[in-house]
């Protein structure tokens, strides 16, 4: 485990791999995140639930270094994400699956993966691409243009893109969307494997059942703040659904 960053203050956990401290993010007049704090350990998968507009995607984009918070700080393995000079170092450690695939549709799947592998400085891009095509079950379709892929296949390829450099922090924004049941199960196995290998996984979902089954810990984001947090072993699906409903009623 790495050392915490310098001058982190009393709130900073000594062991957390990902540390988000009192994050605020505004879009115009609207506050998307309001004083959100979150820790994530290595080898842990955290499922983040919440309604549309709760700030889940914004949080992931902040942690991926695509956005900067208006207040607060975030660290990945002690690297401050706000510091411009440290961002490349942090980005080497982060893999991000977004709503949009970030794939070049007119290029083949192989060209896409090879391109990102080179951009991340992967040592043997061809071998890594072959491994990933096997993991996401796209062997035999590597040389098809991405525009000929179905929605689910594009999602699987986007996942391979996010994992191409074997990141230590995997951020997945609604990874189950567009996947068939078999691919969803396969993704669950992949997430478990990532966590077993010591990766920190943070994913958002609207599917309470799938999310709960694949996470070590769950959190509910509501109105830009962390409204609920629990370990999986403390919860059943019914309990989680009740908590979610009661939060919705309270807000209504």
């Amino acid at each position, binding site marked *: 485990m790495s050392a915490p960053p310098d001058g982190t203050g009393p709130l900073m956990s000594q062991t957390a791999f990902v540390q988000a401290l009192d994050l605020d993010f505004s879009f115009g007049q609207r506050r998307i995140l309001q004083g959100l704090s979150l820790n994530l350990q290595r080898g842990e998968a955290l499922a983040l639930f919440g309604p549309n507009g709760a700030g889940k995607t914004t949080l992931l984009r902040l942690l991926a270094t695509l956005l900067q918070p208006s207040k607060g700080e975030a660290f990945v393995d002690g690297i401050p994400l706000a510091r411009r000079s440290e961002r*490349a170092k942090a980005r080497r450690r982060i893999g991000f699956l977004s709503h949009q695939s*970030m794939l*070049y549709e007119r290029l083949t799947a192989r060209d896409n993966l090879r391109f990102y592998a080179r951009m991340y400085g992967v040592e043997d891009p061809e071998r890594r691409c072959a491994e990933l095509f096997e993991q996401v079950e796209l062997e035999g379709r590597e040389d098809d243009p991405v525009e000929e892929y179905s929605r689910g296949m594009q999602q699987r390829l986007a996942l391979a893109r996010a994992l191409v450099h074997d990141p230590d922090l995997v951020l997945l924004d609604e990874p189950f969307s567009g996947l068939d049941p078999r691919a969803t199960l396969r993704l669950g196995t992949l997430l478990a494997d990532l966590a077993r290998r010591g990766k920190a996984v943070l994913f958002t979902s609207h599917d309470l059942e799938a999310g709960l089954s694949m996470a070590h810990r769950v959190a509910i984001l509501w109105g830009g703040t962390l409204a609920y947090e629990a370990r999986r072993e403390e919860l059943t699906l019914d309990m989680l659904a009740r908590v979610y409903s009661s939060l919705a009623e309270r807000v209504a």
Partner: protein
Amino acid sequence: MRVRSATLTICGKDLRQELRTRESFTSTFFFSLLVQIVFSFSFDFQKLGLGFEDVGAGILWITLTFSAILSLQNSFLIERERNCLAGLALCPCDPSAVFLGKFLANSLFVLAVQVLILPLSSLFFGYDLLRVLPGLCLVVTVNAVGFSALGTLFAAISVRTRRSELLLPLLLLPAATPVVIWGVKATRLCLSGRPLDSYGYLVALSACFGVIFTVAGVLLFDFVMEE
């Protein structure tokens, strides 16, 4: 990742994509061809008592400027699809490599179209291309590269806006006026058969313009890429 290898990787990706689809090339080439055809039918040089050297520079630069805008626009529109721009921003390379990669690909692309257009213009307007070829190549290359440097930076700035197709020419054309004017003047002198000495200072000015905007792109691209 080293800037040079990231630059070449991005440039290679853009060229591969263009070779696969030929989207930019087709529109740019046929636009350029159309401009040449229209002008060749519009002017009766003999009747007007003009030679190609009198109006040719204008015709060539109208073609070059607008065909370059078409390709510059496309180079960032392909990054906007599926939010590939964010994919590039997430890569752990220096952001200047993204600028340099796109700039290199754009410059090569603009020059490739000119390589085809110049012989065609010689056919349409009946001037001796071989006589002016070295000078013309120098002028076109230096000015096209300078124009691409500025255009790449502005295309990246405008791509996140809703009306990027409209915004890019609005931003680019006024700012690129000096390099276009120097290009037109140098081309006219070159087509008139003057030696390089007579228009060398114009080429040097255009080269300075290109260097300034390349350096600006390298320094500013980190901020341009930010959401």
